[in-house]
């Protein structure tokens, strides 16, 4: 008897530990994506757009219904509270998958928005962040015809669970964004989602950030080179001109390594070594491939890629951004904690890039 009383008492005592309140799922509204913009008329105010999924009872129909609401105010928290009185059910950010920053807002400062996503307890740290053009609100209003779950298409594209485009930068989860904002020696880089029409968006560019401020836009080609440098085995094809004819090769394996070299006298430079194993995917010549042709093609491809990579690197360097984390690498390889950051700042001004691309086109593709 005593034991039963003890158990009941313990159950009673841990009642406040449950964390959440009992609220049935049908009394909640799931926010799928949040868009944060600068208010249209007042640059000091924020405008928040929520894309809310309306659940469908019949799974066979698979037609998505969303509600999009926009509200303006001083802080995001305040705006969300105001929004609560415009809807009938409780807002739940547990399934929120993406936070989009409007381009104008991103160019100013995203610090407070990043802070809000980190602090709010029901937003997961693994949500995707991206910059939206022309504004987050308009991008959220895009309804792709292939979309079955509200806001799912942006999520699928950004996460690379769906499409595996080489023009989309690796996912910037909320925690990655926050870490890169805080960390000395690494800067955020976010994908840029553009609205093409009411039913289509385009993600093939990216935005370089100087900490929490968007600075420079990377063109599709540069975004792809960035991906090649930061990811292993990037799935893409590249073009090469050889003797006036076009060839395209598909990357099977790729890896990029770099070293920061500081000669005692002379300019410091970063040496990039890129190794690519590839196969021919398209040839405009009609010739039969032999080993010599493949070798020559590889050499030409290596040279041309060298140039492209160097161009991209110098653009990133000129923007004074560090999305590849060179500064962090430099600090990790040096011991003098008190001066190394100063040294790096000083050194990064004069940085040069030496790129060595080793492209090995090994296979001719299928021959049949």
């Amino acid at each position, binding site marked *: 008897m005593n034991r039963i009383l003890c158990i009941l008492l313990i159950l009673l005592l841990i009642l406040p530990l449950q*964390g*959440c309140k009992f609220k*049935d799922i049908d009394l909640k509204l799931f926010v799928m994506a949040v868009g944060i913009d600068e208010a249209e008329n007042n640059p000091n105010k924020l405008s928040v757009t929520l894309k809310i999924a309306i659940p469908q009872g019949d799974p066979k129909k698979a037609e998505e219904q969303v509600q999009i609401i926009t509200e303006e105010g001083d802080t995001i928290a305040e705006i969300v509270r105001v929004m609560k009185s415009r809807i009938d059910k409780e807002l739940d950010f547990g399934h929120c998958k993406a936070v989009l920053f409007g381009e104008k807002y991103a160019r100013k400062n995203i610090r407070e928005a990043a802070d809000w996503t980190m602090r709010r307890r*029901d937003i997961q740290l693994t949500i995707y962040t991206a910059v939206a053009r022309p504004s987050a609100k308009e991008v959220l209003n895009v309804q792709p015809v292939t979309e079955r779950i509200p806001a799912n298409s942006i999520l699928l594209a950004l996460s690379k669970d769906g499409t595996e485009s080489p023009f989309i930068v690796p996912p910037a989860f909320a925690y990655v964004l926050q870490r890169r904002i805080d960390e000395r020696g690494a800067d955020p880089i976010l994908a840029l989602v553009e609205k093409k029409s009411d039913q289509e968006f385009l993600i093939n560019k990216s935005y370089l950030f100087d900490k929490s401020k968007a600075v420079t836009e990377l063109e599709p080609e540069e975004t792809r080179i960035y991906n090649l440098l930061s990811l292993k085995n990037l799935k893409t094809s590249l073009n090469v001109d050889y003797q006036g004819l076009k060839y395209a090769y598909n990357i099977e394996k790729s890896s990029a390594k770099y070293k920061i070299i500081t000669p005692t006298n002379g300019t410091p430079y970063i040496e990039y070594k890129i190794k690519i194993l590839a196969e021919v995917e398209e040839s405009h010549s009609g010739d039969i491939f032999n080993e010599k042709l493949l070798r020559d093609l590889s050499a030409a491809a290596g040279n041309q890629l060298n140039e492209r990579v160097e161009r991209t690197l110098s653009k990133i360097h000129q923007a004074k951004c560090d999305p590849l984390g060179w500064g962090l690498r430099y600090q990790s390889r040096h011991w003098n904690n008190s001066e190394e950051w100063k040294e790096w700042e000083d050194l990064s001004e004069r940085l040069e890039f030496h790129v060595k691309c080793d492209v090995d086109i090994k296979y001719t593709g299928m021959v049949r």
Partner: protein
Amino acid sequence: MRGSQHKKESDNLLQCIGEKLSKSTDLEQRSLGTSDQQVNLIYLKSVSHSATVNRFVISPFFEMKDEKGFEEYIASFPGSKPSHDIKEILELLLGGHVGIFFSDNKVYLFDAVRVEAGSVADAQTEVIVQGPSDSFNESLEVNLNLIRRRYQSSDLKAETTTIGHKSKTKIAIVYDETRIEPEVLKELKKRLDGISVDILQAAAELDKYLSGNKYRLFPTTIVTERPDRAVFNISEGKIVLLVDTTGFAVVLPAVFNDFFTAMDDKLQVLPVGWFLKGIRYLGLILTVLLPSFYVAFTSYNPEVWKVQIALLVAGSRATVPYPSYVEVLIMLLMMEFLTEASLRLPKAIGPTATTVGGLILGTAATEAGLVSNIMIILVSAVAISNFVIPLNMMGFTIRVVKYPFILLATLFGLLGIVLGLVGVIMYLCSLRSFGKPYFKIFGIDRVRITNSQKERENG
């Protein structure tokens, strides 16, 4: 002088065998004839056919009046065999032969094997795909026969006692003397002595009286109707209680894992056996946790689900007028009613109940918007995975265990489920089956004991 010496040798043999087979109540030992013409019979009643013995051994002896002639008569029987090797004699006795000891020191083994075929029915509650399908019936003799035929060793002991002031139910304690742990036997005898009831009619009842704690949740002894399971457990060093007039045997001590072993696991290829066992444990986890997970996820932590499922559940719950735990309880109770009803109904009406209950009620309830579609799937999954458990005793327990989990999930959400799991595991660990730890999933030291045992026997 010589004659008396012979006589002594033969008597020694008889005495020795008698000792070997002592403590077996089915042992029958008889002396025939007068003092100068004495023939001794020894056999096991349970495996030898008494009518055969009477007709072909005892009656002719008195008809002939001449021991020499009788000896020739016995020797001429097909299947009769002279022997002096005590080991061989023992083996044949255990196999159902009758040992006939003549006064001139000859020993014959007369074939009187008893075969019970008609009265032994197929197993009903523990059906398996391959392997023997016979089951214990209501006769203690037959049940002993079923076990002896499968376990022909002199180490097998069968002691009887009676329980019940009025019913005087005979109970046979069957065990392998060399393999059991004496403390368990001692504990069992102590507890059997302590039982004071008027009537004992089922093996499961005995199980209830044996395990001291009335409020325990899990069965600590196996109740089985399969002789092969009983024999297998005897060889593992366990004790089998055969209860006369029940058709079921009680095996003890039991560990948790025993309840998830079907007898045809042994017959399967090893990876298949592992797979089947894995499926049973998966079924256990599903049937206990699915309903409570549903409550916790719909009402506390919807973010655990994938978006698709969250929206689907939210959509299908839109018309449901009461909170998730009421929905779960209603459907689970309906399922329990259905199981209970189809269990007790005559075989002819059974399918009707299942159709009406399962198909019509389920579909109608969803269409009327009283329960969500997901709920129907969930309840069926719970019901089916409950039936995966091979032994019914455990199956019934598991049916009950899921309700406290629902309560905990309703009060505390996911935290409650974790709490419940910790509690159940602690409770299982605290259970003892006749002094042996109950929640010993892999039974490692049991295997070690039997291996060393086997070595000792072979060497």
